[in-house]
């Protein structure tokens, strides 16, 4: 469970690991945007090359990426099948009621599949090479302009980092409560839907109670340590923008320019 929520950060010292989290976050978003510019197989090959290149620069095991796709495989197949059977054009191979299997349908299905997989690979690359806290930091920095419209950016980012910090603690606690309830005869993950829902209640109630207690303790401790809101605090953790970050951004922009060209091939 924890693994899904937190991504799967794999520590390492590759160029990608050492990049500024802001750069990685921006590039991930940028990639998701430019992938919608792709419209022919040449452009997908180009983006695939970029993805593979980034993965190789990160020096992480490729198996992680396959694992990243797996939980979403049904969603992907569903969307791909919709594309295949509901788009028409080109040679029609087969027709039945509203469904038809056409040349364009097949092509579109293949494109949608590639789009999904590439986006998942890139976002997996982000979470594999960037600690959750660094992502939270990057979000804070990138959200700074929102301060002008009174968005409590510091508070949001502190909330995010505390939430991330407490995930493993609450996981442990959940496991403990589950064991305690099991020993009292509660069966988890058995029976019909109603029974399963019922079995979750004796898990959630103690978990909520303890979370509220923890929250109160934490608030007291934070206040005792001089916390009085995000304004005017200094920062211990800083991120530096290196040449490699600029290079990374340049590579992505160049790929976009080539992409704009390849589109009209």
């Amino acid at each position, binding site marked *: 469970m924890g693994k899904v929520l937190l991504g799967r950060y794999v520590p390492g010292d590759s160029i990608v690991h050492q990049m500024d989290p802001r750069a990685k976050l921006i590039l991930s978003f940028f990639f998701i945007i430019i992938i919608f510019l792709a419209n022919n197989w040449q452009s997908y090959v180009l983006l695939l090359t970029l993805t593979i290149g980034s993965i190789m620069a990160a020096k992480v095991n490729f198996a992680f990426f396959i694992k990243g796709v797996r939980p979403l495989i049904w969603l992907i197949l569903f969307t791909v099948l919709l594309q295949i059977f509901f788009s028409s054009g080109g040679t029609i191979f087969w027709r039945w009621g509203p469904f038809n299997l056409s040349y364009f349908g097949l092509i579109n299905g293949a494109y949608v599949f590639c789009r999904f997989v590439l986006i998942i690979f890139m976002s997996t690359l982000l979470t594999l090479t960037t600690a959750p*806290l660094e992502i939270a930091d990057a979000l804070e920095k990138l959200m700074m302009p929102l301060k002008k419209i009174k968005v409590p950016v510091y508070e949001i980012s502190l909330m995010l*980092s*505390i939430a*991330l*910090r407490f995930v*493993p*603690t609450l996981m*442990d606690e959940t496991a403990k409560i589950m064991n305690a309830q099991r020993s009292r005869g509660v069966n988890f993950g058995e029976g019909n839907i109603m029974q399963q829902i019922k079995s979750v209640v004796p898990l959630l109630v103690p978990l909520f109670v303890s979370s509220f*207690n*923890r929250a109160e*303790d*934490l608030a*007291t*401790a*934070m*206040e*005792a*340590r*001089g*916390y*009085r809101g995000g304004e*005017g*605090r*200094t*920062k*211990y*953790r*800083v991120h530096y923008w290196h040449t490699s970050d600029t290079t990374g951004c340049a590579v992505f922009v160049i790929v976009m320019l080539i992409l704009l060209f390849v589109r009209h091939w």
Partner: protein
Amino acid sequence: MDMIEVKNLIFKYPQQEVYNFNNFNLKVKKGEWLAIIGHNGSGKSTLVRLIDGLLAPESGEITVSGIKLTPETVWDVRSKIGMVFQNPDNQFVGANVEDDVAFGLENAAIPREEMLIRVKQALERVGMWKFADHEPVRLSGGQKQRVALAGVIALKPEIVILDEATSMLDPEGRLAVLEIIHELNRVEHLTVISITHDIDEASKAQRVVVLDDGKVVQDDIPAEIFSHRAGLIKIGLEPPFSEKLKEELIKQGIKVPDEYLTKEGMVDWLWQLFSKQ
């Protein structure tokens, strides 16, 4: 000089009927190590929270290091006091060890260059520097409390308050924490208030205050307080092991010294007794 002075304190929790403190008075001297003991619900945590300005009294006067506690001075007062609470997990704010130590420094708007130095020094003090990049899940309870202490040390307070800070630790972790406190008190002359159920911890203090329903029922040196077995049981505390052993020895017809003996003192005395025979 009095480091802390509590005068005519009156306090009850909102929506509560009974008063936790009704005309309560206490003075703590500079450099003193004061242990507060008393059964659960006697108001120990409430008292230290009032001193730290985390709760506001109905009336009365609290002075910390010469500053009178008011809504305007509460942050100044808090900067003089470092607090360590009971549950090691629920006071760990940072994502990892060094971040957590830095949390208080960030709040105090200490420049980053100085933060780096202070975090390292504080973590070295408590022997946790090599764990600087560890997340809290990878630490034992005792290690987390040492990190909490480092957070306190980094802020250079004048007073350290421990609210049952060792009660959830194993004996080893407890010893490590107490050793640091001991050093802070004896070497750097910080004023220490430790709330505890552990007699061995309390007997390290110079003075013990026994609290019962918001009243000081005893205020003395540890040796005096812990030699009255009946009294200890009345306030819900186990007599120290050495006292229980003494009692058993008396039953066996062995003459024992009258004064309170610490565990170490007891061991020495037993060896003397043994070598005489």
